[in-house]
């Protein structure tokens, strides 16, 4: 039972409850956390209940409780079985999955190979779905028997298992009446869907028949969407919710100073990347890029602005992912930067630094710091903090010199990152990057064999590290704050808030 709080508060809450009895919409766990229910405050609202129709971290996080994918990724970057007991690449273009037996959907129907066939074919064929483009390389999905599925691909698709960690399995009954299905969806996950108020909160209840006995550990789960960090933190501090994500470094001391709250931080699978527009005068010249890179004091940014909640970059691919390697840290040498610029004849350079408004923590602060650092070596920086839609248009049009962005590797595989930004087709309407060696290596890195992939990715990164088409200032750190009533909470590197095995005291 929860320990009684201040009497005055109980009184007020009690009388509030009396008044609230005539309230317009009674809320169960208003000011006090109840045993058996966890309330999480997420920074990003969920947009859809269809696992194939979004690429948002928040939606993935929430939907993972309702649906299971074929495999999961652990916090130490291992792929582990979920609905698939095992999987294997038979050759460069064929994957075979053996499924778990005895699993049922929330409506009682059994989970079989039919679900897998349906889910995969649906996401590939319905090109209106957001995830569809990822699965276009799938040639055929064949049911061998009730627990075996073979997937053949048009070209090597080594990252398929990683992508599948983000695709919840749907029952074949969803076909034919998708709108109806998604108003009250069923999955095989540890929680059943109860209700969703757009942009406000989602309610889930426990699935007693879940195939893993260690989950779930609470009766009810509520995810509230609170984009304002100060509000999220206030709700946690007031005891109204139990866990929040996306905490900023400056908020940590306040949270640590509140009794009953623990702060967890873990290096994320995300590298910030400021990419150059390679078709413009500044970005075109590798000497300018080198000078800019030398002029940026990454360690000061990490230490002073991010308060240590970031890690120095040693390769574009963060630790834990296949392809990570150690290429040493980039140096800070403003004198050399000045010399290079003088030599290259660029003494009065002006750079347009475009940011997508409110996307990354402290980005505006960091951009201003960078502007000052670059100013020190004679480069004038115009900061353009634009709303996201406009910023992305400007990027496609090439109207920027440096663009503040990041890449969180969701799924846990760098193939997408390389394929999108460092192939001619991918970068055409963006950075205009074009290097045939890199292009070749990326294609070669698509095979399922992890040893081959590691080697290819290391080669790619050596080239990129030297060429510097992007600045990788730091790896992000994911910070969560949790009520100490929660047991077994794991701070994840991929920003997901997963509460399957979390209990509340």
């Amino acid at each position, binding site marked *: 039972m929860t320990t009684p709080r201040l009497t005055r508060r109980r009184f007020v809450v009690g009388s509030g409850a009396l008044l609230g009895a005539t309230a317009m919409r009674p809320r169960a766990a208003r000011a006090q956390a109840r045993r058996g229910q966890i309330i999480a405050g997420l920074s990003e609202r969920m947009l859809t209940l269809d696992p194939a129709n979004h690429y948002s971290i928040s939606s993935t996080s929430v939907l993972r409780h309702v649906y299971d994918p074929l495999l999961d990724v652990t916090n130490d970057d291992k792929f582990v079985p979920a609905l698939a007991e095992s999987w294997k690449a038979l050759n460069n273009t064929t994957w075979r999955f053996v499924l778990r037996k005895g699993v049922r959907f929330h409506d009682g129907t059994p989970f079989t190979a039919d679900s897998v066939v349906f889910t995969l074919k649906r996401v590939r064929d319905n090109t209106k779905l957001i995830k569809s483009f990822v699965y276009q390389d799938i040639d055929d999905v064949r049911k061998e028997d009730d627990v075996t599925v073979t997937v053949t691909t048009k070209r090597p698709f080594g990252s398929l298992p990683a992508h599948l960690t983000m695709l919840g399995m749907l029952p074949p009954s969803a076909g034919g009446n998708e709108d109806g299905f998604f108003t009250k969806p069923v999955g095989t996950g540890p929680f059943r869907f109860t209700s969703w108020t757009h942009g406000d909160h989602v309610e889930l209840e426990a699935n007693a028949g879940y195939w893993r006995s260690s989950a779930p550990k609470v009766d009810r789960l509520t995810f509230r969407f609170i984009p304002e960090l100060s509000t999220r933190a206030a709700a946690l501090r007031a005891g109204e919710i139990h866990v929040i994500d996306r905490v900023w470094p400056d908020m940590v001391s306040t949270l640590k100073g509140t009794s009953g709250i623990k702060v967890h931080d873990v290096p994320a699978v995300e590298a910030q990347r400021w990419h150059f527009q390679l078709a413009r005068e500044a970005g075109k010249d590798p000497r300018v890029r080198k000078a800019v890179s030398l002029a940026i004091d990454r360690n000061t940014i990490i230490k002073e602005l991010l308060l240590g909640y970031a890690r120095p970059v040693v390769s574009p691919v963060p630790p834990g992912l296949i392809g990570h390697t150690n290429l040493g840290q980039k140096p800070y040498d403003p004198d050399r930067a000045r010399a290079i610029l003088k030599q290259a004849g660029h003494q009065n350079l002006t750079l347009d630094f475009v940011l997508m408004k409110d996307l990354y923590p402290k980005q505006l602060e960091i951009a201003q710091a960078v502007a000052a650092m670059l100013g020190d070596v004679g480069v004038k920086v115009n900061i*353009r903090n634009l709303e996201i839609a406009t910023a992305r248009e400007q990027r496609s049009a090439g109207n920027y010199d440096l663009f503040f962005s990041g890449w969180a590797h969701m799924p846990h595989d760098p193939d997408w990152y390389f394929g999108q930004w460092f192939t001619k087709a991918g970068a055409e309407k963006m950075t205009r990057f074009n290097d045939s060696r890199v292009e070749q290596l990326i294609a070669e890195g698509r095979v399922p064999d992890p040893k081959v992939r590691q080697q290819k990715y290391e080669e790619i990164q050596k080239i990129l590290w030297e060429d510097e088409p992007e600045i990788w200032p730091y790896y992000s750190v994911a910070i969560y704050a949790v009520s100490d009533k929660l047991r077994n909470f794991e701070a994840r590197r991929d920003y997901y808030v997963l509460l399957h095995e979390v209990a509340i005291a």
Partner: protein
Amino acid sequence: MTRLARHPMILLGGLILAVVVIASAAAPWLTSADPLKPSFARRLTPPQGLGGAAHPLGTDNLGRDILARVLHGGRLSLVLAASAVALAAGVGVLVGLAAGLIGGRLDDLVMRLADVQLAFPVIMLAIAIVAVVGTSATALVGVLALSGWVLYARTVRAAVLTIRETDYVEAARTLGAGNVRLIARHILPNTLAPILVLASSQFATMVLLESGLSFLGLGLQPPQPSWGLMLAEGRDYLSNAWWLATVPGLAISLVVLGANLLGDGLRDLLDPRLRQ
């Protein structure tokens, strides 16, 4: 002059505004600190008071002196607000005159146009304009003026409609006075009072609106220290460094106070119906 003395509000309001304006204009002489240069070692130092300390009002999240920023920022925010008021008043008065004098379909058209525009939240208009022309001081002034012209147009139009029907104007017309003369001699003097009152309270509104727009990223770009940007940057630090947002907030309050007092006082002074 003695009339002014009987209206302390005007004096007080004018004084407050004058102090703010002069302090902002004299920013480079009042403080030697650089409002733009970061200093990481001195981040978030609390206000140290006025006893000759290096940072009387503290420093912000990049170690910049807040006093310097709020003074330099005043130049930006005040000039922007004043330009916006001037533009809004200019356009509004012209449109109002036209609508009132010419009347008929032009009047209807203009008033419906105003209604249509008012039905749009300013934010949406701001986003649309900024998306097309980008953020700049000019765009900002344009957006601010767009949000304010209707009030002038309506006021002037109402005044014109009233005055148009009065006897002496009828008489003037029969005597052959053209529109221009009518405007100059009879209409404008009578509308001057409400316009001045409106302008002074709108000044405050413009300052607030500029801060709101910069707050949403639709105004000036950092590192310029407009008050709105300072507010926006200070918002994330309210629980651990309250002075970042409070100082520009107080500056805005001072301007609003001065403008309001001035406006109320002017109204008291100039409204013929209040003459005792």
